[in-house]
């Protein structure tokens, strides 16, 4: 699907600083020279078509609760089954297969360290494979925005 110029601007320009004004879509509309209605319906369509996940905050890791990246090494025939077990935990947000001996990678967010370790123990028991806990020690990157290349 071809994105319109308006859609591209909405996707690119409001990742960092979505307006904190009473009518943020109107603020955007004024910047782009369109109506508030147009902006709201364009965002609704982008969301409906899954081009955007949401308009919201990215929280600095470990400010609220604790989180960790976790890796597992699982033989291919059991991989999908184990991924499904892991996905059942509401504390798991990302869960990806990656091309490596450690082939399953997920992120856990829990209330505290005990809660997090308890979930890992449960996952190890239910999948019968070990987990490798890789929590964040230091963040060298502040900006999580994702700039689209608008020229291609």
């Amino acid at each position, binding site marked *: 699907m071809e994105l319109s110029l308006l859609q591209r601007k909405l996707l690119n320009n*409001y*990742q*960092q*600083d*979505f307006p*904190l004004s*009473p*009518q943020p879509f*109107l603020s955007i509309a004024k910047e782009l020279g369109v109506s*508030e209605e147009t902006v*709201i319906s364009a965002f*609704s369509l982008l969301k409906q078509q899954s*081009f*955007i*996940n*949401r*308009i*919201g*905050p*990215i*929280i*600095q890791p470990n*400010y*609220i609760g604790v989180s960790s*990246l976790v*890796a597992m090494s699982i033989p291919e025939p059991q991989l999908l089954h184990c*991924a*499904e077990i*892991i*996905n059942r935990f*509401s504390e*798991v*947000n990302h*869960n*990806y*297969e*990656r*091309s*490596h001996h*450690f082939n399953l*990678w*997920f992120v856990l*967010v829990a*209330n505290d360290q005990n809660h997090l370790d308890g979930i890992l123990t449960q996952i190890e028991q239910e999948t019968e494979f070990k987990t*490798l806990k*890789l*929590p*964040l*020690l*230091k*963040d*060298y*990157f*502040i900006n*999580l*925005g*994702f*700039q*689209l*290349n608008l020229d291609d």
Partner: protein
Amino acid sequence: MINATDLDLILAVQKGLPLVSRPYATIADSLQLNEQQVIDRLQFLKQEGLIKRLGVIVNHRKLGYSANAMVVFNIPDELIHEIGQQIGQFDFVNLCYQRPRHQGVWPYNLFCMIHGKSQGTVLQQLTELIQHCQLEDYPHDVLFSQRCFKQRGAIYQREPKL
């Protein structure tokens, strides 16, 4: 640590602002705050760095950025801070974190994420990164994402009441 009002606010906005004319007023109603209090508090939490950014969260896979590589390096501890900051400045790097090594199992301590439209582009960018930061002597590995089993924003939950 975060206070109860701010936590309620985060819990209310984390799934996304409603796509209505006055989204902060809608959030305020659900929290028994007023619209201006919600706006001021979000502004404050951004300034404090608890909110890293507030805005549109795109689905990069859907937008054609389907090659996603986690690149991991084993960098000597005394250099990791400097090299981490260098890597974090590249446009095509989306994340750059230090994580622990695990003896005999996992030798890498620096993780970064590169998203691109093809694996070829990503590998080219990685070559550029390695040359520019002079990382040729340090072991590294590239883990491209394959199947996505789950992808959503972190959902924070209230502590269970005791």
